[in-house]
């Protein structure tokens, strides 16, 4: 049956008039040789049978069903003839794919234990006549192996179902260096003890490996490198296509069980080495063979019917395409490759096809949606979320945003007007009647408010324009008001606007995103990219290994433009590019990535942290010179250093930790030099001692120190703690000022914290908590506390501060023993006292109608106290007398500062009148300090009272602005 299908395919191909499905086109060659070599065919057939049986037994029955379904369809197609090949192309492709996969799968089966080149050798021994065929076949195998995943991206849903697994696995695989795996994998037991063999460059070509567990002597990264260098592929998880599972110990993980299920052969590290070594023994023939595949590989892929034609030609005459390519390459090109190979039709775009389609649809429907709607009432449409007048394309650079915008507009017959960062995009003159007068922004205004410039409207097909605003996130200093203007433009625009930016979440664009349809371009997968790169390489006559291009694609991190530039640059010096070249080339020039501090710390502390080069370490620690040291400091205790061998009592580790801690402290000292004395030349030394040395001492596996802690690096605790310290110091300072203002004591802040605080807390909390057990009268207790608070002019916030600062982890809250009724009573009593309390600090003045009286700590106002700070409730006479005396006294006393005097004057000149309200009667004199309940004037006078003294005024006049605001708000 299978063969029937192949024959049918052959027929279709032989007819040679089928250029519909390129995939179908590609298919025939592989089969041809196979039919010619019956022995092989038989093997293959058995292999396939085995696998299909496997499938049947497998849970993947669904797949089998699909296959069955496919087959009748195919038969029908056979009957219908060639035309029907076009009709269900996707299905066919799928089928082909399945076939291919079966083939792939069978390949390792028959070559079990032998490298492809070995196999080639044996076959070449069979006879010279057969050799080209064999070569051809192996080529095709290669091609298939390599290509099948490539197709996954471009194909629809079905395709992804088949080959999605490996590519998904790859995604995970690339994250392998991340922190997820730290601590799981141990060091290879015989690390570095074995000699790593060197084999023929492509001896592993076409084989797909999955690495599991710890290898005997190689680190995972080294093994990957080794396999890639020899042309093999690495995927993250086992699939049908996996040739070998590389592992030295069966750790019964997911990978090995899957491999067993699928019948994937296991390969030990030694086996791998043997494979590679054996290829070297036959190096001479292998070289030849492997050379050819490279050429073929590069020449095979097809991007257009033309190409396919070219390929059929090649099948006939192997030499001719090469010659043709040479011609192409020789042809001098003035364009850079990025321009030369810019996609010409939307279908050529790599990745993001659905977004391009979306853009296409949006642009196509724009006129109907907005023009017609604009003529009628557009309110309804405007609310429709799908109908935005502008579109915002976002995504990292080099993935074809501008290109797709241009392409789509071209395809729909729009004339694209591109405005980018090289143009001035500031705010347009509001007076549009001035004319456009050279300003670009005005041009845009003109453009969008007019439709089809200069063309007569009655013609049905008038010229359509679209405005492409490129790099909108680059609208900055020079383009003042640019974004706002753009939004305004969008609102009135009569033509579609496409905005393009890199970072959609940029602060600048916050307002813009509401007016745009958002299309976020994603990076193309590396398979997609390498496919395109192969096309380019072909066209340029460059011989590039597929693996090499994948590596290139990976290194540039999705930036197609950069990949092309790199490729072009490399093409200048060499015509054959292989994996090592790419690796070497891009080692240093890898695209700068934003590396998060966490990643940097992970890498530094990671298992392979000891193998990083010095510049890499510096680079990592400098990625954020402020955060990385904090993260290191936070987490270094958690690492069990790999550098010490046996450490039975933890002594060595403790010693290393002590050294690391000292080094971190060194870093802090250096940091002071850098920041305080601007000795920036020390920054390398700083990062050395704060990051690199601790990491070098302690890199290893991470362990948790607390139960329930996740085994990830914590964020540096210092920042948060430091800000809490700052806050608490501020609160303490408030309390300090109040205590000073009470004039009862003349203490320093540290003394306050160290000695006084405990006693203050006792005084404030003991009576209330004592009133429970000892049945001390509640009122009495409250009264006592309030009295104490008054003496030291402690307010309730200060009380909270005292309590807050006395809390220690693991110790009870000082307020615990106090019943809530007493607390409430205390609050009430304190509030009541407000009316009669003598105010000593400016921020204690409660202004009616204002929650926060004055800016905290503006000035503390004092009453002279030597002759008694008697009585809050003392008699009014004494009070007012005191007021007077203090006033008079100060007028003589202010002699101490002409400055103060002048400040006072300036205060006056600023229009703040100084008036001292002395009112008769106890209540009123009190009112001086207790503005509560008084109206506007009263509180104003409280404000001015210090001024009248000539002292508080100087304090507050420092902030005349704030003061005046205060006044005006009254």
């Amino acid at each position, binding site marked *: 049956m299978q063969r029937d299908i192949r024959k049918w395919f052959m027929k279709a191909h032989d007819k040679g008039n089928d250029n519909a499905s390129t995939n179908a086109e590609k298919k025939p060659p592989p089969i041809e040789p196979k039919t010619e070599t019956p022995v092989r065919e038989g093997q293959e057939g058995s292999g396939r049978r085995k696998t299909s049986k496997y499938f049947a037994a497998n849970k993947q029955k669904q797949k089998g069903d699909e296959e069955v379904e496919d087959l009748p369809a195919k038969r029908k197609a056979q009957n219908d003839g060639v035309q029907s090949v076009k009709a269900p192309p996707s299905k066919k492709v799928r089928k082909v794919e399945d076939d291919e996969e079966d083939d792939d799968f069978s390949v390792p089966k028959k070559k079990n234990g032998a490298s492809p080149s070995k196999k080639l050798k044996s076959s070449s021994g069979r006879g010279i006549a057969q050799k080209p065929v064999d070569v051809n076949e192996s080529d095709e195998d290669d091609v298939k192996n390599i290509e099948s995943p490539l197709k996954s991206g471009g194909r629809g849903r079905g395709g992804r179902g088949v080959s999605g697994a490996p590519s998904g696995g790859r995604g995970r695989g690339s994250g392998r260096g991340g922190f997820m795996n730290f601590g799981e994998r141990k060091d290879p037991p015989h690390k570095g003890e074995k000699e790593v063999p060197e084999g023929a460059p492509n001896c592993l070509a076409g084989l797909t490996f999955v690495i599991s567990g710890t290898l005997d002597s190689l680190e995972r990264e080294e093994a990957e490198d080794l396999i890639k260098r020899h042309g093999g592929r690495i995927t993250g998880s086992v699939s049908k296509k996996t040739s070998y599972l590389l592992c030295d110990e069966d750790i019964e993980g997911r990978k090995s069980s899957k491999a067993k299920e699928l019948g994937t052969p296991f390969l030990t590290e030694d086996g791998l080495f043997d494979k590679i070594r054996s290829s070297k023994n036959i190096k001479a023939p292998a070289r030849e063979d492997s050379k050819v595949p490279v050429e073929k590989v590069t020449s095979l892929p097809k991007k257009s019917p033309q190409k396919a034609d070219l390929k059929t030609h090649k099948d006939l005459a192997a030499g001719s395409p090469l010659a043709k390519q040479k011609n192409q390459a020789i042809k001098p090109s003035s364009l850079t490759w990025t321009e030369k190979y810019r996609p010409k039709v939307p279908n050529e775009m790599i990745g993001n096809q659905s977004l391009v389609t979306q853009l296409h649809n949006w642009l196509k429907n724009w006129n109907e949606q907005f023009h017609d709607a604009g003529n009628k009432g557009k309110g309804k449409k405007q609310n429709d979320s799908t109908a935005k007048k502008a579109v915002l394309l976002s995504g990292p650079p080099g993935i074809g945003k501008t290109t797709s915008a241009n392409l789509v507009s071209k395809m729909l017959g729009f004339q694209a007007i591109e405005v980018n960062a090289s143009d001035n995009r500031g705010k347009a003159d509001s007076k549009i009647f001035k004319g456009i007068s050279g300003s670009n922004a005005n041009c845009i205004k003109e453009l969008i408010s007019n439709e089809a410039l200069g063309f007569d409207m009655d013609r049905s097909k008038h010229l359509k324009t679209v405005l492409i605003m490129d790099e909108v996130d680059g609208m900055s200093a020079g383009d003042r008001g640019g974004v706002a203007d753009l939004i305004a433009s969008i609102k009135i625009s009569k033509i579609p606007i496409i905005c393009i930016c890199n970072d959609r979440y940029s602060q600048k664009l916050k307002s813009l995103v509401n007016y745009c349809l958002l299309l976020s371009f994603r990076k193309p997968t590396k398979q997609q990219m390498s496919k395109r790169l192969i096309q380019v390489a072909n066209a340029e006559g460059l011989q590039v290994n597929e693996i090499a291009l994948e590596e290139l694609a990976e290194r540039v991190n999705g930036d197609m433009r950069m990949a092309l530039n790199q490729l072009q640059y490399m093409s200048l010096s060499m015509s054959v590019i292989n994996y090592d070249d790419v690796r070497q080339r891009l080692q240093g020039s890898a695209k700068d990535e934003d590396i998060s501090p966490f990643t940097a710390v992970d890498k530094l502390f990671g298992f392979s942290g000891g193998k990083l080069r010095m510049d890499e370490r510096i680079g990592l620690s400098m990625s954020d010179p402020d955060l990385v040291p904090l993260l290191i*400091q936070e987490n270094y*205790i*958690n690492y069990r250093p790999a550098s010490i061998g046996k450490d039975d*009592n*933890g*002594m060595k*580790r*403790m*010693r290393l*930790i*002590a050294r690391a*801690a000292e080094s*971190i*402290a060194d870093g*802090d*000292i250096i*940091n*002071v030099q850098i920041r*305080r004395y601007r000795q920036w030349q020390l920054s390398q030394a700083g990062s050395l001692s704060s990051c690199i040395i601790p990491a070098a001492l302690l890199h290893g596996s991470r362990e948790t*120190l*607390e139960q329930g802690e996740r085994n990830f690096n914590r964020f540096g605790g210092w920042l948060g*703690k430091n800000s809490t*310290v700052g806050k*608490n*110091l501020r609160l303490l300072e408030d309390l300090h*000022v109040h205590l*000073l203002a009470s004039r*009862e*004591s*003349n203490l320093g*802040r*540290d*003394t306050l*914290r*160290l*000695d006084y*605080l*405990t*006693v203050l*807390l*006792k*005084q404030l909390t*003991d009576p209330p908590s004592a009133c429970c057990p000892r049945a001390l009268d509640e009122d009495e207790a409250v009264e006592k506390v309030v009295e104490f608070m008054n003496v*030291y002019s402690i307010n309730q916030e200060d009380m909270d501060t005292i309590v807050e*600062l*006395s809390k*220690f982890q693991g*110790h009870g809250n000082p307020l615990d023993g106090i019943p809530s009724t007493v607390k409430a009573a205390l609050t009430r009593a304190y509030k009541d006292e407000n009316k009669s309390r003598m105010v000593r600090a400016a921020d204690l003045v409660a202004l009616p109608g204002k929650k926060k009286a004055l800016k905290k700590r*503006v*000035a503390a*106002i*004092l009453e*002279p*106290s*030597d002759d008694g700070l008697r009585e809050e409730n003392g008699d009014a006479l004494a009070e007012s007398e005191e007021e007077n005396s203090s006033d008079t006294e100060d007028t003589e*006393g202010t*002699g*101490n500062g*002409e400055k103060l005097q002048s400040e006072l004057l300036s205060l006056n000149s600023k229009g703040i009148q100084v008036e001292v309200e002395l009112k008769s009667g106890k209540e009123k004199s009190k009112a001086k300090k207790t503005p509560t309940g008084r109206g506007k004037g009263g509180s104003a006078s409280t404000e001015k009272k210090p001024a009248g003294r000539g002292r508080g005024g100087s*304090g507050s006049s420092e902030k005349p602005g704030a003061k005046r605001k205060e006044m005006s708000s009254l």
Partner: protein
Amino acid sequence: MLWVDKYRPKTLDQVIVHQEIAENLKKLVTEQDCPHLLFYGPSGSGKKTLIMALLRQIFGISAEKVKVENRTWKIDAGSRTIDLELTTLSSTNHVELSPSDAGFQDRYIVQEIIKEMAKNRPIDTKGRKGYKVLVLNEVDKLSREAQHSLRRTMEKYSASCRLILCCNSSSKVTEAIRSRCLNVRINAPKEDQIVKVLEFIGKKEGLQLPPGFAARVADKSNRSLRRAILSFETCRVQQYPFSSNQAIPPMDWEEYVSEICSDMMREQSPKRLFQVRGKLYELLINCIPPEIILKKLLSELLKKLDEELKHEVCHWAAYYEHRMRMGQKAIFHLEAFVAKFMSVYKAFLIETFG
């Protein structure tokens, strides 16, 4: 009002503990012109009290009419303007401030603010002294640059201004400044002196003091009179009448530090180090100065350590204390000390007990 404030001697005559110094000071200001003064001594020994009493002696009662001000100074420092907020305590004749509050910008305070204040000569009215006094607290915390700037100010404006410097340790004040001042060392009061003061207070308050109780309080106070009086009052709040074996409550933070200390002694492991870091943070968050933490930690450790380790641990404590002063993030240095101690102590334990 707390006893510690209530019974603070207001004049030099009332001083109980440092009577000799008080008399000398009195002679100094009455008989001749007052030089710059540097008071140094441990906390709770009475420096501030003496200074205030001295000021009262010089300026009379007006020295006690102080006001607290918190003002922002705009300082032009070359290319930029710095806003500094500073709390000052001032009467007509003196200004008291803690320049070290400004952190590493203390240089500007000395260079600009203090100079500005020193420049202004008070108007001599009613035959008052023709100079004003600047009281600078915590001079030992001043950065080196600030101290260097200070010495010029001291010379240049000595005609109109006297500086009274106050600090805990004179070793952290530069030689140049010390030589420009009359150094007054205020010793911590002896325990019997403390007992005397406590008994005086007890008598004034009309309290029944059980025999030996005052001595116990004095013993616990670590020869800090302030501490003694405060804990005396705490005891009073806690329980009255006193019983002779009444527990004298320790300061909350001291209790916590000794907890940390016993943690460190009990186990030396990364895990423990991590816990200790958490506790140290806790102390810092509660505004305990890191130097005090380190000092207290050391003294607690010394209580428990073997003789042969004491020297080494002291060495490391001093080493890290010095580095802490040069650095900025205190916790790093505290942690480094703890790690070092753990490493040393663990090695010692293994060596001794295997």
